[in-house]
């Protein structure tokens, strides 16, 4: 059948200019202020995710600096205990729920369609809805701060501390509903990415030719689908306990506070991999490109990522070693926690082998990868230490744990992310960043990071507990705390330089052209920045790095897709052979109004559960608009027929 539908450019005469004009018209952006709310393009939405997440990163960073200033000297009276509780809670919640996961999702939303050679994600309107949920959740949490309702029960809000008796007022409700908002958003993105990767790949991109970053996003999305409902359940149960007096976490009436820890960590541990797996995907891409050779052990890496996804769900109890588990349970989860080092180790050795066998180019993104190696290995080592229950009980709730998870999260996700943004920046803006400034930034961040977090190991081993707002001058913790606080300032300087580089380069950076790094994956085939329809013609793929196999203008292309409407090619799951055409919907404002309705429901339910019902009814109207059957279900502009 493909012979009828498809043919290569060699066989057909195509009016390139007319096709381009048609595509630009049918994929054009909705204009004006209202148009901003109608946008459904994956690059616009993805960029919004990334920018919003970075704004929250800055907010979370400021909170971190406040805490470090408070802890810089003993008996400091800068923050009172109440404010300190609020700040560490918001810092943790922001970084986990409003930065780390959304930014990875944003990268996925932005890059996956480009990397697999299609024009948009599978459900563009749902995608827009997901972003609004994320945005509202973040605004909601930060509105809480200004309404004196900032949560203060820690980012994991253990019951009974977070329950109705010990967290009075509406503070924890704001936290719980922020979870509901952001996790709903994460689920939406996960479904987008899964369907997009499975059904919208360019012809010929069989499963074994998918770029590793896309594999990582796929596995991450599946993990989201299984992990996020657990925490949404947990936050829902917590809300019900708090507002309508259910007893999910009240042991006296048959509930169990440990139920919270189980449901939360059943999400919370996979969450670590949800953040980390995209990071490894980015590292794999960067290692491949800058070693100038195809990745070593592609199959091993993909299988490692998949098995990480599976094993990631079998470890949650190691967060609960101090709760008095049965011996067998402790042993099992200790073993599982050690087991997960195997797939991670496989990936590391594959990356090392790739570099070994290639000709590494020490570009700025590659320096970030090197930083990642250093930090993440250190974090992994402390992870192996605390995977064993006896040691964990010793350092439980101390700064050792703080040091550990900052090493793995910042090392495993933020450094690759910063490298990845540096790497894909030309594709997003069409301009190159300042390499010298970039290199200095990377070094400052690496030094600042270790200065801040390495002393925390020492502090934890010397007994400094987490979540204390100050400590005594007699405690011998002062010097290490001072060092960590200095480190925090260094990180802040690095962060500012990173942003300066981005803003300066966006304005004045040199033009990059389509493929400044001579990379091999599909996104580098199209213009920089990529047009709204991504590719003039969908390419046909015959290998893992198509652009390394032949020059970009010799790559076979799909023709025959209509350009006067938002048509994409659906391919089959395994071989990516063409299956049928599919028309994607166009811009609309209804997802925004559904998001508003959902937001009203979630927000109101903090005060009265009936708002939740009302929110459902409010959503009903825009849902009708959203799904109203049109003759042409896409956005079809009025236009003259091309000659």
């Amino acid at each position, binding site marked *: 059948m493909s012979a009828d539908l498809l043919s290569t450019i060699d066989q057909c005469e195509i009016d390139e200019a007319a096709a381009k004009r048609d595509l630009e018209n049918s994929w054009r952006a909705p204009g004006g202020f*209202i148009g901003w709310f109608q946008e459904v393009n994956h690059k616009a939405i993805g960029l919004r995710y990334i920018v919003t997440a970075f704004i929250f990163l800055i907010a979370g960073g400021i909170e971190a600096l406040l805490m470090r200033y408070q802890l810089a000297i003993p008996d400091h009276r800068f923050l*009172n*205990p*109440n404010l300190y509780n609020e700040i560490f809670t918001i810092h943790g919640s922001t970084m986990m729920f409003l930065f780390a996961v959304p930014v990875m999702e944003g990268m996925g939303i932005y890059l996956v369609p480009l990397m697999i050679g299609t024009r948009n994600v599978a459900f563009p309107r749902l995608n827009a809805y997901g972003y609004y949920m994320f945005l509202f959740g973040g605004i909601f949490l930060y*509105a809480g701060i*200004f*309404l*004196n*309702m900032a949560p203060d029960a820690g980012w994991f809000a253990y019951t*009974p501390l977070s*329950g*109705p*008796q*010990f*967290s*009075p*007022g*509406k*503070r924890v409700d704001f936290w719980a509903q922020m979870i509901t908002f952001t996790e709903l958003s994460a689920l939406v993105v996960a479904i987008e990415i899964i369907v997009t990767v499975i059904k919208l790949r360019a012809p010929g991109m069989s499963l074994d030719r998918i770029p590793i970053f896309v594999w990582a996003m796929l596995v991450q999305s599946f993990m989201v689908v299984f992990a996020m409902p657990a925490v949404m359940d947990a936050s829902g149960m917590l809300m019900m*306990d*708090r*507002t*309508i*007096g*259910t*007893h999910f976490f*009240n*042991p*006296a*009436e048959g509930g169990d506070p440990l139920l919270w820890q189980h449901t939360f960590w059943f999400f919370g541990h996979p969450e670590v991999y949800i953040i980390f797996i995209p990071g490894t995907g980015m590292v794999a891409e960067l290692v491949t490109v800058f070693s100038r050779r195809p990745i070593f052990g592609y199959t091993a890496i993909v299988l490692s990522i998949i098995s990480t996804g599976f094993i990631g769900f079998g470890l949650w109890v190691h967060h609960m070693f101090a709760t008095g588990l049965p011996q067998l349970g402790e042993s099992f989860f200790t073993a599982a926690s050690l087991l997960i080092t195997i797939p991670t180790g496989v990936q590391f050795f594959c990356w090392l082998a790739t570099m070994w066998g290639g000709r590494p180019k020490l570009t700025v993104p590659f320096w970030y990868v090197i930083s990642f190696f250093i930090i993440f290995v250190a974090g992994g080592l402390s992870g192996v230490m605390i995977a064993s229950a006896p040691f964990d009980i010793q350092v439980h709730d101390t700064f050792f744990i703080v040091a550990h998870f900052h090493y793995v999260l910042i090392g495993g996700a933020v450094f690759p992310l910063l490298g990845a943004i540096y790497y894909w920046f030309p594709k997003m803006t069409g301009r190159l960043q300042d390499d010298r400034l970039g290199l200095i930034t990377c070094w400052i961040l690496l030094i600042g990071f270790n200065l801040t977090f390495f002393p925390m190991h020492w502090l934890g081993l010397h007994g400094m507990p987490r979540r204390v707002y100050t400590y005594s001058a007699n405690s011998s913790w002062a010097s290490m705390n001072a060092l960590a606080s200095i480190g925090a300032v260094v990180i802040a300087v690095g962060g500012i330089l990173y942003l300066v580089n981005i803003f300066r380069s966006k304005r004045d950076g040199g033009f990059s052209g389509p493929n400044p790094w001579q990379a091999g994956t599909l996104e580098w085939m199209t213009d920089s920045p990529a047009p709204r329809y991504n590719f003039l013609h969908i390419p046909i793929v015959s290998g893992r790095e198509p652009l390394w196999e032949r020059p970009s203008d010799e790559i076979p292309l799909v023709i025959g897709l209509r350009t006067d409407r938002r048509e994409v090619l659906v391919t089959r799951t395994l071989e990516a052979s063409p299956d049928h055409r599919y028309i994607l919907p166009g811009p609309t404002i209804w997802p925004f109004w559904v998001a508003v309705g959902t937001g009203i429901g979630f927000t109101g339910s903090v*005060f009265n559960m009936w708002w939740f019902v009302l929110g459902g009814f409010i959503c009903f109207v825009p849902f009708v608009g959203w799904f109203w059957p049109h003759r042409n279900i896409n956005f079809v502009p009025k236009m003259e027929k091309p000659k």
Partner: protein
Amino acid sequence: MKRVTKGVLACASVLVLATLASSCKRESRTLRNEPPQRGLYDAARESTNEPGGKLPKIGMPSPAEGNAYAISQGQRLFDWYNCSGCHAQGGGGMGPPLMDRRFTYGSQPANIYDTIVKGRPNGMPTWGGRIPEFQVWQLVAYVRSLSGSEPSAATPGRSDGLEKKTRAQLQ
């Protein structure tokens, strides 16, 4: 469209301001308290029978009224000082119920403060000099919350522990 936007913005800001005003008091927390100021508070009236017409209101308002943290602390103290031993979770036992809005010696925060500090002749012990003043106010706020005299948004939906609701296992 502009006007609509303006209207929405106006409504939203009014809403935000209203929430701000109502939530400030509810959500504030004082974790370090001033030393007790003995003798500052007195003259709560227990009778509504005021010869010669209504007298001007005097007395200090409760510093804990409407504050969620104070109510929560009050609940904890209510158990710690064994108030719950006599008054249960508001239903009463050795002592009278506190959840029915019928206060023998007055329902105003000042009256309840007096009841706790001075005791009452028919069994209520006197706690003056035993419980710090700020804790007395927290207890006052919790006691008033039992009868719904405190804003519901500041009152927890349930407490940890055995539910006070009765179990209909009767005939």
